């Protein structure tokens, strides 16, 4: 007797989806919609929320509302950049590993294990400290260290599809095996992929926030982690510059996770 799908599940799905949509839309239109340039000094430093500055100003007088809008852009860039790299590597490795099997499979899976064990956060700290902090470097280092789990999923799917009748049939007809597998696998792994990605991506955002807290974020682009982390010393005197960016992170991470969860449960 499975738990009935209450209206609460639908409500959750709607909220999560709208959360993610809002985030993406703000990320796209920020340069046109934001009231001020988030890098310019437009008011008194540490000014409380007011009509002119609905979320207050930061330490040097930059508008926080505009900062948060542009922060959405930065986090979206990072998250999609990482997604791209992760998907590319995971699919390639998983496909090759599952299809070829044998020694290649062993080696690739061992490599995947290494990358899984590598503490991502520490490696990011090292990379950013040695190569300089920047959004591009962050995307690369996070992308390069987050693909193992997904690769395993792709490999498992490849393995099961490889044996199936469809492939044999396709071979009879002469179409390329790899292409067949690819086309066969994709729809099967798509839902798992989506779930996995949304969970992964919310973790990436929190990671970026922690890196920013330590002072390793890109100072040339506004990001939520940077706003939340650099201002946490003023939590007691100017709570808005610490709380609002943190809330933005919370809500977006929540939406992404819920989306992944709800979709997962649908299986």
């Amino acid at each position, binding site marked *: 007797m499975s738990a009935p799908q209450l209206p609460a599940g639908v409500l959750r799905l709607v909220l999560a989806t709208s959360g993610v949509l809002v985030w993406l839309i703000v990320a796209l239109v920020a340069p046109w919609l934001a009231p001020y340039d988030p890098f310019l000094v437009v008011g008194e430093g540490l000014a409380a929320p007011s009509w002119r500055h609905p979320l207050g100003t930061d330490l040097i007088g930059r508008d926080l509302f505009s900062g948060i809008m542009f922060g959405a852009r930065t986090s979206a860039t990072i998250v999609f950049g990482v997604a791209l790299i992760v998907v590319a590597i995971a699919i390639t490795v998983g496909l090759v590993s599952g299809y070829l099997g044998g020694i290649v499979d062993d080696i690739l899976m061992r490599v995947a*294990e290494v990358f899984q064990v590598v*503490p991502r956060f520490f*490696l990011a700290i090292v990379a950013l400290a040695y190569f300089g902090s920047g959004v591009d470097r962050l995307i690369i280092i996070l992308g390069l260290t987050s693909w193992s789990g997904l690769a395993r999923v792709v490999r498992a799917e490849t393995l099961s599809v490889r044996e199936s009748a469809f492939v044999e049939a396709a071979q009879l007809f002469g179409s390329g095996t790899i292409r067949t597998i690819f086309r066969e696998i994709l729809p099967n792994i798509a839902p798992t992929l989506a779930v996995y990605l949304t969970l992964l991506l919310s973790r990436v955002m929190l990671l970026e926030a922690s890196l920013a807290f*330590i002072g390793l974020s890109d100072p040339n682009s506004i990001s939520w982690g940077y706003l*939340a982390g650099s201002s*946490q010393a003023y939590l007691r005197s100017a709570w808005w510059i610490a709380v609002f960016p943190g809330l933005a992170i919370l809500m977006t991470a929540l939406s992404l996770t819920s989306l992944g969860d709800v979709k997962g449960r649908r299986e």
Partner: protein
Amino acid sequence: MLKYVLRRLIQVVPTVFGVTLITFVLVHLAPGDPVEVLASGNGDAAYYQFMRAKYRLDDSLLTQLWTYSTNVLRGDFGTSYLTGESVVRMIMPRIGSTLLLAISSIVISTLVGLKFGILAAWRANRFLDRAVLRTSVLVAAAPSFWIAQVMLLLFALRLGIFPTDGRNSPGFEGTGLAMAIDTLWHLVLPMSVLAIQESSTIARLTRTGIVDQLDDDHIRLARAKGLGDLHVVLRHALRRSLTSVVTVIGSRIGHVFSGAVVVELIFGWPGLGQLILSSSQSRDTPVLLGVLVLIAAAVVLMNLLTDLSYMIIDPRVRLR
């Protein structure tokens, strides 16, 4: 069984070596000359030359990697570029602190997470279940430095129950039991921050695992036999779902170590977190490599332990 354990133990080596390789290459590809760190402000060209030769910095990348790896296998992690101190001597006192923090967080979060997960599954879809789920998702999505700072301000400052920083009280000179109590008192807040996030995830996954099992034929049979709900849950569903819980714990170990960095910084906990940060920023490569290798080894070993406990818990699962 013993062969399996041995095999897994041996596999630890190449994995850790893989991590070493990645970090080593990363660090050596980076722009900047390590000699400048070694020279610490003494701009003499002759001194640079001397340092270069002493630390074999002109060898090829592969040679340096080989030298380093063979040294590590003998237990020699080299000396700090900045202070010349033995890396092992620098890391030893700190690794204990971080392990204490990490392991206690994992233990507590497992206990708490299991308890709430079971409760939530038992009362599936009622208020408690929903409350647990909602709280856990919320907590997992919050930045850890937020949670840390709120707890610091609330429990340490406002309520004054726990200390604000450090592993022991300032200038503490007690030993034995007194020392243990003082350390424990200081451990509570930093550990709680880590445990809160981990236990919520464990609770959620336990709950899901159990609820899935509750559909199982065996369970329906047990229910038909007239066994009480809780009884059913505990004896049958839990045993099966423990495997997924153990998997989860295994995957969280890496996260706990990462989370420890931020917590250590906020609470001034003298662990490896600060060391990683300071050695990265000052480009003190030997120290950095030493810390990363040891952490990778710790994570891999703990993974092994959780995998082994798989086999104890669920007799169905043996070798691959």
